[in-house]
């Protein structure tokens, strides 16, 4: 059942086209809504079990011969993600019912992709087997590709879809490499088993390589610096998709991966530096560039990039807990808690903000922030939701974003004083980055909400007359906004139910008995909104607010600074250069150079390859042998025949006239027949004589109609290559024949025929009996081939192209 639950969305998707086609009066979304609703209630039943620390495991054998099975493993982390996927999924489907018009849109496409994504994402977070994890991982990339390109008639949608696909799939392939390395080192594909032997893995040779490869997968998926460039372009997707895939779930797959592999890799210094460093860099970069954007969804995209960086940095900091003694009593235990907490908070406030951006787009016809303004009085409900979401994102109380932002600052303050890995030198830099990024987060949050909803209404700039959204469309963002407030007031309940089990999955070694409230090894974290006047976090927050407010009010003056960056120096330009310059044009040129349509050249490549492979194999297997043992004696007339044969062949090579060449070929043919006579093959000799006679007659018939053999111009390099390839093939054949003659590795099977030809087949002429009896079918097909050739010849002679069809 547990494994089946993953696939329920995919099964449901089968019925979507039918429903869409035949039940046109009801929006297809209402049927789809049932699926995530069912699933979310199913996963809720697991909460109490997982809260107590009981992991739930179910498996289904998929490819037993390769030892690949679907293992659904639900611990705190997986369950939290599963609930997010199905919970946000429910809200998003509800929202999409009002967002997508049932008469104008291809709803069946949309919902099939969406359900496919749901299955893929559930698979990613529940798979214990790394190969199935990888498969689901790529399926999320594919469904994301399809959803971004949903409005496929738009150029930008297709471009964005391709870009996201190229980057995330490339990352996925790196990740697969990392998985395979890890499995080779640990001897198992099961993540749980790998975690169990994590200390031994540390000393393996390829440990760091596997680590980096897996991180590449996580960073591309979670839009970390410098791979974030696909996420802004992915905003071409319908807004429900942006809210679902590109802020709440899919981009968090990378976060999930990092969290899941923390117990294996955290002991490595590289891991701590990479995850923390890239996370902070992304946080800063995303927040800086969010202010530059003029598209509402563009702001949110960069803000998502930035927030993902924040979570990543926290996970990196949480890994330090593996490097200090008595970790349970240091502040690093907070980092993992804060990461998960912020992940939940981000899903709530960013989900609601995306939906509001969609509503604004839907009701005014534009997402350009320069045209928007003054919508507060027209869309009061949307404004309220947007305000709650933005203030939470900015880190203001009384919203959940404040709590996790405080914890983030705590973690960064702790890092500052950390002694290991020279953090004490660099730590202050990390804190500065964190604070600057928070200031800009504050600025873009205000920028988003106030530029849209306050100020002067520019009614003439808007394509539509603005009005408040239908209530159905507002339900989903309102639910999320309410959660934003509720979580602020009950953070410790959320912590006990959802976060602590997940934290235990990230840092299992820290706690002996995490779920008993009285035990010393439990996860002892409480979230507090008020730290007291003496706490540095408070003053940092105040500082962020003040600087942020100043920067926001003077935004118009310094926003121009962004124009300084030339477009050619961006990562987007690099991507375009690789895709268009290197891959597209470069590969076209390369294939034009090699595949220019000349069959002769292709043949030459093939002959050269055959020659290379065969001689190479002979060399590699040390098979060059010349042995005279068992060789038949050479007789005089055989030598004469050889001379005739060589002369005949030479004639065909150098002949200037057609008839000479044909006579040369005939001479070779008759000589071969004589060889057959000499080597005790009378049947062959007879056949060869007959066939050769007919062939020569045929040649002479046709030759009458063919033009003279002129000397045809060949350019010199080709002549040399042609000669080299022919000599190579000749040498190869000679070597092969010598090698075959000189070492008989197995006994000939001809004894079987000799023994049975009379008793089994009742014949004396072994060759004939083999042909008509032992290999009768072969002979039958041979006759068929001959018949086909005859029919072909007849058709070619009889059929004529009409004058019109004639090739010019």
């Amino acid at each position, binding site marked *: 059942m547990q494994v089946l639950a993953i696939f329920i969305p995919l099964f449901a998707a089968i019925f979507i086209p039918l429903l869409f086609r035949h039940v046109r009066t009801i929006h297809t979304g209402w049927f789809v809504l049932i699926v995530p609703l069912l699933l979310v209630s199913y996963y809720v039943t697991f909460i109490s079990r997982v809260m107590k620390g009981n992991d739930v495991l179910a498996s289904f054998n998929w490819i037993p011969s390769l030892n690949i099975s679907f293992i659904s493993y639900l611990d705190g982390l997986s369950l939290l993600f599963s609930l997010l996927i199905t919970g946000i999924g429910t809200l998003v489907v509800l929202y999409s019912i009002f967002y997508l018009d049932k008469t104008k849109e291809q709803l069946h496409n949309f919902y099939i992709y969406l359900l496919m994504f749901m299955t893929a994402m559930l698979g990613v977070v529940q798979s214990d087997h790394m190969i199935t994890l990888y498969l689901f991982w790529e399926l999320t990339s594919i469904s994301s590709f399809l959803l971004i390109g949903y409005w496929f008639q738009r150029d930008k949608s297709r471009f964005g879809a391709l870009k996201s696909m190229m980057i995330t799939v490339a990352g996925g392939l790196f990740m697969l490499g990392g998985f395979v390395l890890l499995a080779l080192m640990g001897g198992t594909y099961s993540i749980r088993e790998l975690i169990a032997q994590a200390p031994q893995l540390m000393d393996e040779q390829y440990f760091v390589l596997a680590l980096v490869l897996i991180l590449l997968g996580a960073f591309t998926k979670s839009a970390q610096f410098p791979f974030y460039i696909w996420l802004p372009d992915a905003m071409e997707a319908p807004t429900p998709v942006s809210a679902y895939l590109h802020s709440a779930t899919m981009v968090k797959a990378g976060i999930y991966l990092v969290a899941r592999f923390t117990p294996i890799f955290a002991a490595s210094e590289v891991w701590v530096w990479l995850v923390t460093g890239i996370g902070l860099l992304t946080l800063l970069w995303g927040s800086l560039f969010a202010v530059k954007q003029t598209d509402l969804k563009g702001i949110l995209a960069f803000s998502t990039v930035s927030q993902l960086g924040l979570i990543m940095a926290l996970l990196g900091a949480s890994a330090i807990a593996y490097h200090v003694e008595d970790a349970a009593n240091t502040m690093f235990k907070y980092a993992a808690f804060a990461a998960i907490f912020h992940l939940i908070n981000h899903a709530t406030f960013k989900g609601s903000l995306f939906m509001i951006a969609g509503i604004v787009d839907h009701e005014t016809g534009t997402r350009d922030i320069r045209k928007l303004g003054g919508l507060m009085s027209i869309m009061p409900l949307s404004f309220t939701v947007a305000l709650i979401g933005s203030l939470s994102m900015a880190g203001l109380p009384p919203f959940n974003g404040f709590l996790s932002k405080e914890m983030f600052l705590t973690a960064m303050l702790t890092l500052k004083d950390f002694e290991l890995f020279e953090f004490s030198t660099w730590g202050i830099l990390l804190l500065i980055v964190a604070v600057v990024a928070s200031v800009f987060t504050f600025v873009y949050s205000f920028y988003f909400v106030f530029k849209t909803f306050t100020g002067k209404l520019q009614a003439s700039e808007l394509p539509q007359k603005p009005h408040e959204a239908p209530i159905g469309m507002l339900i989903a963002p309102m639910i999320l906004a309410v959660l934003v407030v509720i979580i602020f007031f009950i953070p410790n309940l959320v912590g006990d139910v959802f976060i602590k089990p997940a934290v235990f999955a990230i840092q299992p070694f820290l706690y002996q008995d995490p779920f008993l409230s009285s035990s010393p090894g439990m996860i002892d974290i409480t979230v507090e909104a008020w730290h007291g006047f003496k706490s540095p976090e408070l003053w940092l927050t105040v500082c962020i607010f003040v600087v942020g407010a100043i920067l926001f009010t003077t935004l118009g003056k310094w926003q121009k600074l962004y124009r300084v960056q030339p477009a050619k120096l961006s990562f987007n330009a690099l991507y375009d250069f690789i895709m268009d310059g290197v891959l597209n044009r470069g590969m076209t040129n390369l294939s034009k150079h090699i595949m220019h349509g*000349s069959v002769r050249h292709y043949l030459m490549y093939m002959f050269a390859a055959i020659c290379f492979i065969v001689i190479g194999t002979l060399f590699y297997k040390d098979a060059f042998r010349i042995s005279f043992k068992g060789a*038949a004696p050479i007789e005089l007339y055989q030598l004469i025949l050889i001379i005739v044969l060589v002369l005949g062949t030479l004639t065909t090579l150098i002949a200037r006239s057609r008839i000479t060449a044909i006579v040369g070929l005939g001479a*070779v*043919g008759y000589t071969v027949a004589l060889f057959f006579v000499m080597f005790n093959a009378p049947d062959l000799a007879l056949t060869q004589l007959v066939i050769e006679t007919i062939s020569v007659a045929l040649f002479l018939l046709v030759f009458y109609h063919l033009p003279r053999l002129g000397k045809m111009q060949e350019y010199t390099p080709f002549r040399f290559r*042609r000669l080299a390839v022919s000599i190579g093939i000749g040498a190869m054949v000679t070597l*092969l024949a010598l090698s075959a003659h000189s070492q008989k590795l197995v006994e000939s099977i001809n004894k079987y025929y000799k023994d049975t030809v009379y008793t089994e087949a009742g014949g004396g002429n072994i060759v004939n009996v083999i042909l008509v009896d032992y290999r009768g079918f072969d002979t039958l097909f041979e006759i068929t081939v001959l018949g086909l050739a005859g029919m072909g*010849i007849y058709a070619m002679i009889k059929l004529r192209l009409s004058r019109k069809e004639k090739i010019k």
Partner: protein
Amino acid sequence: MEIVMAFVCGFLFMAAIYLILSRSLLRIIIGTGLLSHGAHLLILTMGGLGGTAPPVLAEGVSDFADPIPQALILTAIVISFGVTAFILVLAYRAYQELKTDDTTAMKGSGIDD
């Protein structure tokens, strides 16, 4: 004898490939003819050229030639005849329609490469 035949086969193959890579249709066809001769002799040589009698059961004969390569070659001779005949007529018809037996000219451009 086998050693000598190995070189003969190699020579036949070399000539065949050289002709097949030329531009004239007739030379290409002659090349395929040589190629099949070479292949037949190669199979025979690889099987061993010993044996004092044809592979026919007869009183008092025990050392006869290996029948298996012979059976293979017999099939191959017939097939190669079919192929040769087919491409000969193909060349003839192509010449009639296109007024050239130059494969490069058939491609449409004057000089390949």
